[in-house]
C-alpha cells in the first residue's frame, strides 16, 4: 500500500474523510490557544512595546505563504511526473490559502512596522517581496480559471508554477538588490533575524504549528471540494452525452 495509493480520488476521499474532523478540532484548538497565549500572557518588548505580539501572526503567516507555494510546486511536479489527479487538485486548492496567508503577512508586517516608519506602508524589501508573491498567486489562479479542460489546465498551471517559482526566487533577490539602491536599508527591516527570547519563543512555536495544521486542514477540505466538483462536471458531461 504505497503512498501513491492515495492519489486515487476514491481512496483519497475515504482517507481524508476520516482525517478531516480530527485535524479540524486539533488545528482550531491549537490556533486559539496559541493566539491567546501570545496575546495575553507575553510581556512587552522593551523596545517595541506591545507590537511585538504581532509576530505571533506575522511569522507563521509569512512562513505559510511561502510554504504553500512550495507545496503547490511539489504537487505540480507530482502531477507532471506521475499524472495523479488528486495532487493537481491539491495544488489548485492550496492557492487561495496561500493568497490569504500572503495578505495576512503583508497586513501584519505593515502594521508591525508602523511605529517605526510612521506610515502603514513602507517599500521595505520583505513586504515588497510578499506583494510580488501575491501577484504570482493571482496569475496561477487566473490560469486555472481561464482553461475549460481541467487536465490541460492542470498541465499548464504546473508548468507555470515551476517557471514562476524560479522567477519568484529571482524577484526576492532582485528586491534586496533594489532596496540597497533605495537607502541604506530600512531601520526596522523585518529581514534581520529577530532575537526572540524564551517568553515569545514557545507561543510562537504553537502558533506556527497551528498555522501549519490550519493549512493542511483547509487544503484537505478544499481538495475534497475540487474532487466533488470534478466528479459532478464529469457526471454532467456524461449525462449530456447519453441524454
Amino acid at each position, binding site marked *: 500500500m504505497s503512498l501513491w495509493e492515495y492519489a*486515487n*480520488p*476514491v481512496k483519497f*476521499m475515504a482517507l481524508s474523510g476520516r482525517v478531516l474532523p480530527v485535524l479540524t478540532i486539533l488545528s482550531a484548538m491549537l490556533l486559539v490557544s496559541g493566539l491567546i497565549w501570545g496575546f495575553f500572557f507575553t510581556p512587552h518588548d522593551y523596545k517595541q512595546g506591545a507590537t511585538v505580539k504581532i509576530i505571533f501572526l506575522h511569522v507563521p503567516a509569512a512562513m505559510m505563504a511561502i510554504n504553500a507555494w512550495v507545496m503547490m510546486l511539489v504537487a505540480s511536479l507530482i502531477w507532471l511526473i506521475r499524472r495523479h*489527479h488528486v495532487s493537481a487538485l491539491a495544488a489548485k486548492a492550496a492557492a487561495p490559502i496561500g493568497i490569504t496567508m500572503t495578505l495576512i503577512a503583508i497586513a501584519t508586517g505593515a502594521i508591525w512596522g508602523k511605529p517605526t516608519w510612521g506610515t502603514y506602508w513602507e517599500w521595505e524589501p520583505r513586504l515588497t517581496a510578499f506583494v510580488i508573491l501575491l501577484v504570482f498567486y493571482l496569475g496561477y489562479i487566473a490560469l486555472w480559471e481561464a482553461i475549460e479542460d481541467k487536465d490541460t489546465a492542470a498541465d499548464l498551471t504546473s508548468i507555470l508554477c515551476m517557471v514562476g517559482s524560479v522567477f519568484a526566487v529571482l524577484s526576492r533577490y532582485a528586491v534586496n538588490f533594489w532596496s540597497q539602491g533605495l537607502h541604506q536599508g530600512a531601520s526596522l527591516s523585518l529581514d534581520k533575524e529577530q532575537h526572540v527570547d524564551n517568553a515569545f519563543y514557545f507561543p510562537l512555536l504553537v502558533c506556527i504549528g497551528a498555522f501549519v495544521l490550519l493549512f493542511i486542514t483547509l487544503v484537505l477540505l478544499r481538495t475534497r471540494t475540487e*474532487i466533488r466538483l470534478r*466528479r459532478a462536471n464529469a457526471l454532467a*458531461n456524461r449525462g449530456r452525452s447519453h441524454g
Partner: protein
Amino acid sequence: MSLSVQNISCHRAGRAIFENLSFDLNKGDCLVLRGPNGSGKTTLLKTLAGILPSATGEIHCDPAQISYAGHLDAIKAQLSVRENLAFWAGVYNARDLDRVMSKFDLATLADRYGQTLSAGQRRRLGLARMILTDCQIWLLDEPTNSLDAEHAAVFAKSITKHCADGGIAVLSSHIDLHIPNTQTLDMADFAPSGTIETDPFLQGSFS
C-alpha cells in the same frame, strides 16, 4: 518502412474515444477511416502523428517519415503561394520547389496571396506541401471536404500515385475516393465498450 499499430486506445477529457484499435500498413497501402463526426478519426490521426499520446498500446513507425495535414491547411494568408511553399521547403530542406509547383500547376498562382485562394487551390497547395516533405507516411484529415468532384478526383489521383510509389496514406473522408486497393477502417468497430470507467473521478462512489 511500415506503420503498425497495436491496440491503442485514446481518452479525451476523461472520455474514451476508441479502444484497442490495431492495424498494420506496409508500403503502398492506403487506409480510409470511416465513421460519423466525433467518432475519433481526428483523434486517431493526431495520435499517429504523435501530437496526442495514446493511453494504451504502441505505434511502430519511423516518426521522421510522418507528415500530417489537419483540418486547417497551414497556409499563411499574408504570404504568397511561392513564399508559403518556400517556407515549408526551408523547414524540410527540400530543394525541388519549382518541380512540385509545376506538378500541381501552382506556378500560375505563385504570386497570389494565401487569403485569395479558393478551397481547391488551398488543397492543391496543401498537397504540394506534403510532396515537399517527401515523407513516406501521409496522414490526411478530411482532405476532400469543401472540394468539388473534379478536384477530389485530382486529389485521389495524387494519393494513388503516392501509394504506387511505395508510400503509405491514412486519411479520413466522407466521400468515396475510388483509390484502388484501399483498406477501410470503421471507427464504430472500436467504439469504447463503456465497461471500464476511464475517468478516475467517476470510478467507485463516494458521497
